[in-house]
């Protein structure tokens, strides 16, 4: 057995190389919209940010506290619906509506937490799914408020003005890029702060052994609810952001079980309970799902000459592979769980450690 050489709060400090690399990456991200004008590239980046925000939020509750919620669409939906309903029905600008969504989601989270945290393990998972489904069905049926299954379409987003001057008109993707980037960085910073504070210790103690944590003076329901509230707030922000960006929401996109599962997958694929896991998960899943959706894989197979575009297989792939999105997702998850139980990040760390041992 070897020492892991780390504590949750390490005093070793960060190496200058890491700091320089981090700053360079940040500068590149800030300059990206100036250098790359392709709306599709910006769109992909915005989806990356959105996935990172969702993943990091879930990670606080699922990864650090060990409460595997498969109902995070509920919080996403609350954020999305609050912002959109206020904007469309009450002419409230989204940058105020977002905060109304955050306030509402805290209330919803406390209510859901007080029900679901009575349960442990798989029972908690089932309860979290059930509660999210209740929210979805409510959104379907409260037609006066949510417009039911038809969803809400935002025709235009009011420009963001400050003291009479227009800050941005939201006509291009660039403002969304910067908002997404800022929120993604914010969630990473919050995760870092949580991990290095008493909260992080209490969350992880609960994850590792609830009874032991309880006997060491940790108030279980208090800390679980704190984790849930932090997690729900950022998930709701992601929901609001999505709603304004896409301009259309309905119960089957923002309150669906699919979405809840997708949020969990970002973390499982990247690495649960780590700061960078959700970022890695987003970097894997977003390009993959885009490639599948646009049938990039079939095009590549045909181009490379492996499959003829006119053959039966080629035609089959052209027609069906883009619909096999969920299937390929599923296969990927099985592969990751089988071969990389700690996610891509954990797997990479293990490989690195192996190489270091060989060279040492």
């Amino acid at each position, binding site marked *: 057995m070897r020492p892991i050489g780390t504590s949750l709060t390490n005093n070793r400090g960060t190496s200058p190389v890491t700091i320089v690399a981090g700053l360079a990456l940040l500068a590149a991200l800030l300059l990206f919209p100036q250098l790359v004008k392709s709306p599709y590239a910006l769109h992909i980046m915005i989806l990356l940010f959105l996935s990172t925000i969702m993943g990091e939020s879930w990670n606080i509750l699922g990864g650090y506290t060990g409460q595997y919620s498969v109902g995070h669409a509920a919080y996403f939906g609350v954020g999305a619906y609050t912002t959109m309903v206020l904007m469309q029905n009450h002419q409230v600008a989204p940058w105020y509506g977002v905060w109304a969504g955050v306030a509402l989601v805290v209330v919803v989270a406390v209510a859901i937490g007080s029900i679901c945290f009575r349960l442990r393990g798989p029972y908690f998972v089932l309860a979290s799914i059930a509660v999210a489904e209740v929210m979805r069905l409510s959104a379907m049926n409260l037609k006066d408020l949510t417009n039911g299954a038809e969803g809400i379409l935002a025709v235009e987003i009011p420009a963001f003005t400050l003291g009479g001057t227009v800050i941005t008109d939201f006509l291009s993707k660039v403002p969304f890029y910067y908002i997404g980037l800022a929120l993604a960085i914010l969630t990473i910073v919050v995760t870092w702060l949580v991990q290095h504070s*008493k909260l992080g210790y209490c969350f992880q103690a609960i994850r590792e*052994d609830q009874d032991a944590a309880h006997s060491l003076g940790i*108030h279980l329901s208090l800390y679980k609810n704190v984790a849930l509230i932090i997690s729900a707030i950022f998930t709701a922000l992601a929901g609001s952001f999505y709603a304004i960006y896409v301009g259309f929401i309905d119960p089957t996109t923002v309150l669906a079980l699919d979405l809840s599962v997708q949020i969990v997958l970002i973390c499982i694929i990247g690495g649960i309970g780590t700061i960078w896991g959700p970022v890695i998960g987003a970097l894997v899943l977003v390009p993959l799902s885009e490639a599948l959706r646009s049938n990039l894989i079939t095009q590549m197979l045909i181009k490379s000459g492996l499959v003829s575009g006119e053959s039966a297989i080629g035609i089959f792939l052209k027609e069906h592979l883009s619909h096999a999105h969920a299937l390929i997702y599923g296969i990927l998850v099985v592969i990751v769980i089988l071969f990389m139980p700690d996610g891509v990040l954990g797997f990479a760390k293990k490989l690195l450690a192996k190489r270091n041992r060989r060279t040492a």
Partner: protein
Amino acid sequence: MAILEIKHVSKFFGGLAANSDVSFDVEQGMIMGLIGPNGAGKTTLFNCITGYYPPSRGEVLFKGQRMNGLEPDRVCKLGMARTWQKVRPLAKLSVLDNVVVGALCRTNSVKVARDLAHEQLKVVGLDHKSAFLAGGLPIGERKKLEVARVLATKPELLLLDEVMGGLNPAESEEIIQLILDIKKTGVTQIVIEHDMKAIMRLSDRIVVLNSGEKLAEGGPQEIVSNPEVIEAYLGSEH
């Protein structure tokens, strides 16, 4: 002065009385041995005292305060802490971080907690392992970690549930010394142990449980010469 008073405590699981009408006092600063054959209700009594189950009847007073119905985290904050018969390390955290979690019971500062944790690890002789994963420790060191972690919560009363179970004689000896050192710091202890030699050496007083009832109470010498205790342990033919 009695730091802990157990008054007519009973605990029923359905029709089974795991504890029935158990009463005794624990004086400040002493080591109380709690012994009895398997299934005598020792761990159940610990669970009733520390808030894991409310007693079905009777009451537990800690420093004169009624503890019935308090949650384990409250009990720990009030100064009464326990270890587990089956050790419960926070497996994916380092040895140091395990103890930091305990220390955070008394402080909100992670830095203060880390200093305290190092101190406690030194007390149990585990500081050199502080950067190891708790889940990878051998059993002897897990037991020490359990003690360090619980000491970090700064208890006035410590309940040790078979901390020597599964240890070799050398390791047991270390734990015995550790318990005696803890006594010197003024912490009151209740010790559940099967090793009779150890319990005789450690205890100022001993309570014997059998089938959930208190069979005997007294100093170590009284207990070993008590015919009822001998019968409970070795059978009446002895």
